């Protein structure tokens, strides 16, 4: 059956309908005007009116217009779109977790506190760190916390003048944005011919700014899917200069159980539980971005931390040097819970299988497609590989964007495109460990067909997508004349 676009909720509304039936008031009803001042009361409430079946059908139709990991392959580089185990969803719905209030006394929440405490310990071990704060609600939130800790450390050591954060040009955009949010100025480090940190440039930057470098933010493996093999030296150089080293853990799926940022010399890192540890992406959130640290940063951790005592687990607020709070409560508990279930399922015996199969799948795609598309840096990769459509663009006028859109016609979600920025016409593919060889083969075959279409019939690629419910969108008008909400007169 062909999918069609769905009317808006507001266009389906009809006065007098309702989707809920609430109980009558069982206490004596007082006049509202006796309870609240009249100027504090609203006269109209312009919300839509729908019955329950209409609500369900509307959102079910919308769901059918959405691509998802459960419906197909989602090779988005840097996003780790792995399968989200159903057991974890069942656990997160248990009322003993879902219906727990965060201000209960600790004695009444020992189950949640045990999960939080265990995850502080488990993530620290996986990252090679000394301890973990679970509070950040997302990766970028983790970056912000990590930088605040670095700042607190320097301030506490009389090094408040350190105002620069070094960021490689291949870094995620959140890195410089988080640094700015922490009052830092970013300095970009060039990449070398191998797609790694340009060591000579790093050395120059450190010499020029010796006293002012607060730290370095690095993703490892980097956004090209390559391991920064000079990492030990990089960390040593930053440490010698008096700075600290931050690991953007977005690419931990390449490393779990096989290598640990803490062992490489990183002082602080964040995890993306919604990437590496399978908490669902939810269409853009919620996420969870715990931060692991070496003990030198422990005094500054946000409050509270969960501690284990003879009498059980409790929230510890007694941290005089703490940076304070960064979340209303204790982070994304239900995401942390899902990640806990995921890690226990693999356990110490098989956690490394995640990285092993993720790296295997990425290299399989790289090798199978290297004759159809140019690999940006063609060597053994980690969990993702980056192709460039520069040749196709130059010779046939077909851009990475067109290839991405054409893939939709084959039933695949496109890869990440135009990132990292240093690769022109980048196509960044991350298959994850939860895809079968058969799925990879069908994706490979679609990509090869597109490569051949580009040579023989570029028009079909340029006009893609053809099979989706809507075709190419006018994004320029959307930004120039923004319509950000429905209004009555649009009817």
């Amino acid at each position, binding site marked *: 059956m062909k999918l069609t676009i769905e009317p808006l*909720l507001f266009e389906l509304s009809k006065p007098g309908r309702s*989707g809920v039936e*609430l109980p009558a*008031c069982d206490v004596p*009803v007082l006049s*509202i005007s006796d*309870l*609240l001042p009249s100027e504090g009361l609203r006269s109209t409430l312009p*919300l839509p009116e729908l019955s329950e079946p209409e*609500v369900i059908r509307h959102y079910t139709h919308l769901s059918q217009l*959405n691509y*998802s990991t459960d419906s197909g392959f989602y090779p988005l580089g840097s996003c780790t779109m792995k399968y*989200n185990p159903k*057991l974890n969803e069942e656990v997160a719905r248990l*009322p003993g977790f879902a*219906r*727990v*209030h*965060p*201000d*209960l*006394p600790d004695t009444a*929440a020992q189950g949640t506190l045990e999960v939080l405490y265990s995850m502080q310990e*488990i993530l620290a071990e996986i990252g090679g760190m000394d301890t973990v704060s679970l509070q950040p609600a997302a*990766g970028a*939130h983790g*970056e912000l916390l990590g930088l605040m800790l670095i700042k607190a450390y320097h301030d506490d050591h009389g090094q408040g003048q350190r105002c620069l954060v070094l960021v490689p040009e291949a870094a995620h955009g959140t890195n*410089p*944005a988080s640094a700015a949010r922490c*009052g830092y100025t970013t300095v970009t480090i060039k990449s070398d011919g191998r797609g790694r940190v340009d060591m000579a440039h790093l050395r120059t930057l450190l010499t020029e700014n010796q006293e002012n470098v607060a730290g370095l933010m690095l993703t490892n493996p980097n956004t090209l899917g390559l391991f920064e093999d000079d990492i*030990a030296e990089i960390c040593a150089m930053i440490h010698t200069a008096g700075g600290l080293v931050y690991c953007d853990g977005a690419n931990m799926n390449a490393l779990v159980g*096989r290598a640990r940022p803490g062992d490489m010399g990183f002082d602080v890192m964040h995890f993306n539980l919604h990437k590496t540890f399978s908490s*669902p*992406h*939810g*269409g*853009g*959130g*919620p996420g969870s971005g715990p931060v692991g640290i070496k003990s030198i940063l422990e005094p500054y951790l946000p409050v509270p931390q969960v501690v284990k005592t003879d009498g059980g687990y409790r929230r510890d607020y007694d941290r005089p040097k703490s940076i304070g709070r*960064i979340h*209303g*409560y*204790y982070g*994304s508990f*239900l995401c942390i819970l899902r990640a806990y279930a995921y890690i*226990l399922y693999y356990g110490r015996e*098989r956690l490394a299988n995640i990285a092993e199969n993720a790296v*295997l799948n990425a*290299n399989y795609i790289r090798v*199978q497609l290297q004759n159809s598309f140019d690999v940006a840096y063609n*060597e053994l990769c980690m969990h993702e590989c980056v192709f460039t459509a520069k040749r196709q663009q130059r010779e046939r006028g077909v851009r990475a964007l067109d290839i991405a859109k054409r893939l*939709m016609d084959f039933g695949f*979600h496109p890869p990440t495109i135009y990132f990292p920025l240093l690769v022109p016409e980048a196509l960044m593919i991350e298959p994850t460990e939860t895809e*079968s060889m058969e799925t990879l083969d069908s994706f490979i075959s679609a990509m090869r067909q597109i490569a051949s279409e580009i040579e023989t019939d570029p028009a079909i690629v340029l006009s893609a*997508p053809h099979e989706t419910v*809507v*075709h190419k*969108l006018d994004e320029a008008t959307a*930004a120039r004349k923004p319509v*950000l909400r429905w209004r009555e007169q649009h009817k």
Partner: protein
Amino acid sequence: MSYIPNTDTDRSEMLATIGVSSLDALFDQIPQPQQFQGLLNIPPRLDQISLMRHLTTLARKNVHADDFPCFLGAGIYDHYTPPTVAAITGRSEFYTSYTPYQPEVSQGMLQSIFEFQTLLCQLTGMDVANASMYDGATALAEAAIMASDLTGRSRIAMLSTVHPNYRAVTETYLRHINIALDIVESSDDLGDETAALLVQHPNFHGNLEDMDKLSEAAHAKGALLVVCVDPISLGILTPPGDYGADIVVGEGQALGCPMGYGGPLLGLFACKNEFMRRLPGRIVGQTTDADGKRAFVMTLRTREQDIRRERATSNICTNEALYALAASVYLATMGKQGMRQVAELCLQKSHYAAAEIGRLPGFALAFPEKPFFKEFAVTTPTDPVQINERLLARGIIGGLPLTQQRPQLGHAMLFCVTEQRTRVEIDALVAALSEEMR
């Protein structure tokens, strides 16, 4: 292994295709000293049955609102969630999708966010809303930063009646970018350098603030008015747009999202039209496709970190899309009538409870002159922490002890009564509290 489809045969075949001898060889790119050898010191694996048993056992160690009537609120609320919410948020077409960067295959999520933005505007009376933030506390902090950017002023005033956790988060955020935070008792304390007045309404104590007065005072000083709302209260309370709010934030958890020990949550963020291009976070807009069909797309993207990098309006790269969806389904299901009814039930039941508790010897309303919506502070004859222990022993989740956060009140606690609480439960609470003076 059930989550990894590759078999040993697959792996051998793939390794041969790649041209490496073993899985270990794939990691040769990591220098030996940086490779981890051996087994991590984490718990051993659990099969699915044992795992479920372990987690169910942990869940049983928690007191939860299905078993115990909950009179605890203070930012996280036990409101009724109609079954439509779980039915839709449980659809994996939504929950296993990524951020809708590719609009042609993400129209479902994009349209749901556009509808969320509209619903939030309808509820708050504001012009535009974004696709949501991490939580109410960080939304308030982001609003303070946005107000500072908009006005070019570097001081923020916050009423002392704002939730202490929100105050703490805002303080942390502002300190790192050198914006001063002044905690003020009234709008008389605003200065010419104040970028915005931050007000929670109803406030931390459950009381309504005099919004007309605060709005006038803030604007008279050239400052913006930032209001932090409880969206449920907007079923009956004046929408902030009507009293001139410039930015409205709030915690959206009450709109169909689980309490979940305080996370994930749903940060609400709306503002006036003229400030749209300074909004943090994602925004969805309407446009047309190549055939002229209505379609939705993430827009005003040049504000965001992946394009603007260090000059972005915020570092945020997430919205709580699934929880925004929950809130939309909640609001769609409740609709005009349901939202008003929920708000009225909260109002009536909390006032009944307050009157009954206020009559008990040793108990008194802490702010008897001030109107409240669904929460009220009471002074208590004994330590509220111990009162709560005794209430728990009777199967009741009591209110929030205020002794630490509001020492000036002496022994005090904050009770919350939502539409979920029955008269029988309220009477049981009152009966239990009456024991305190015996």
